[in-house]
């Protein structure tokens, strides 16, 4: 399994075609959605709360089955019968989803064990990725002893340690306080610059999307369709307060105000 992971770690690219998903077989969450993500790209999926963008990630990770359409990651169809052979996917949830009865290190280990990584390799990766996320002293700490921001770092470290083809992030910073969130965005941007993972990042914050992404898929209110795709031509490293970001933010707000309605978040 780790050989596959190595192989596809650079090869992942994502294709979504005509995706339609409904919550319970009746209410549609996503309608006829197309999306393409190049290898190593950082793509944001932007939409108002409850528009189905999380559902999109669920289907991409193989947890949910779509009613129509298909998704390919690295050439492998997602959710097919060969699901076990398809490249591993790292997923960072909005709420950390760590096992509170395992230490930080054990939380990462259990996921790597399931992927068939050897014991020494696991050990080495834990150290490496904890360091990358600036939490290397916390390997033997219980998750409940950590702050929200630290727990999300563990969650990210867990995703990255899998050396996945793709990292899916579902509003990972939306539950953190503003200062911590800013710091995390900064460090995520830096980390991505070095590692070059393919990342699909869901958010409802226009600014966050502009700060982090190469391209932004802007979705409509639920059921979600792609409303527009915005390129973010700003050079990296970016500054969160950059006036160019503010300008682009204004443009996007103007474009979506009608589409997202009063419920949309500027």
């Amino acid at each position, binding site marked *: 399994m780790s050989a596959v992971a190595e192989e596809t770690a650079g090869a992942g690219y994502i294709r979504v075609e005509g995706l339609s998903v409904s919550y319970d077989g009746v209410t549609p969450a996503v309608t006829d959605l197309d999306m393409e993500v190049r290898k190593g790209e950082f793509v944001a999926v932007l939409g108002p709360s409850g528009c189905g963008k999380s559902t999109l990630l669920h289907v991409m990770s*193989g947890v949910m089955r779509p009613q129509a359409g298909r998704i390919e990651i690295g050439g492998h169809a997602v959710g097919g019968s060969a699901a076990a052979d398809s490249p591993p996917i790292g*997923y960072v*949830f909005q709420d950390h989803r760590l*096992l509170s009865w395992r230490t930080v290190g054990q939380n990462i280990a*259990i*996921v790597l*064990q*399931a*992927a068939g990584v050897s014991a020494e390799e696991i050990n080495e990766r834990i150290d490496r990725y904890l360091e990358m996320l600036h939490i290397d002293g916390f390997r033997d700490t219980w998750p409940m002893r950590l702050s929200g921001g630290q727990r999300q770092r563990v969650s990210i470290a867990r995703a990255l340690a899998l050396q996945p083809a793709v990292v899916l992030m579902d509003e990972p910073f939306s539950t953190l306080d503003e200062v911590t969130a800013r710091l995390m965005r900064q460090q995520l941007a830096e980390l991505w610059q070095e590692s070059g993972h393919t990342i699909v990042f869901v958010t409802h914050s226009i600014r966050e999307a502009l700060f982090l992404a190469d391209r932004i898929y802007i979705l409509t209110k639920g059921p979600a369709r792609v409303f527009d795709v915005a390129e973010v031509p700003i050079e990296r490293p970016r500054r969160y307060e950059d006036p160019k970001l503010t300008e682009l933010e204004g443009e996007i707000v103007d474009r979506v105000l009608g589409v997202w309605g009063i419920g949309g978040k500027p």
Partner: protein
Amino acid sequence: MALTERLETARVEPASRDRVRRAQAFVVASLIALGIWQLATLISDGWVPSLARIFTAFIEDATTLEVWGQIWITFRRILISFSAATAIGVVLGVAMGLSRRITAFFRPIIVMGLAVPDPVYIIVAILVLGTEESSGLIALVIALVPFVVNIVAGGVRARDEGLDEMSTVYRLGRRRYIIDVVGRQVAPALLAATRTSFAFAWKLIVLVEAMTQPEGIGAQIYYSFRLLRPDHMISLALLFILVLRLVEGLAFAPLERKLLGWMR
């Protein structure tokens, strides 16, 4: 003003005060209970056995080897039926807690199982299986399983479903999922189910034995009743209850500490 005063006094109460209170409470409770009993003896003109007679009978029973032999027989039966019921109930309960379909199938069975009075199970078991020892025990197991199932299924259902998703996304696999993710969350419910199962088992075995076998403490209690020896009926009952509550205390307290240690 009054609030701060109350807080002050609350903080000042030391633990030793509490222990004294407990001892006092024990004494008061015992005196009242014994007093009422003696009163009952007087009112009933000796029909209700006096404390002295009960005490004598108790000493006699506690020092008779046969009595302990009977207790052992009963205890053996309790262990067999409680383990079987717990095992079956846990498996079924976990299955039900994880799958809505399985719950849908078994729900009417469990509901009806809880509604059937225990004597009925025993009588039906005898009719179908004959008068061996196993009939009564099988009836007991069937009576206990629905309770275990409910507790365990409830515990499984109360799990964090976000972790289910995480397990699927990270492909942890069925075995790891059940042991590492669900298992730990379900541990308190498992413990509760085991305690309940044991508690019900020793209470119901008395009924089983009173209705069926010539052996076992329940049967002895019933015989004492039939032979109009209330002093022994009560003393045997007391002996049995004391022994079993002791076992409950000794067996489950350390188990609870061990299993739930990570929670503290």
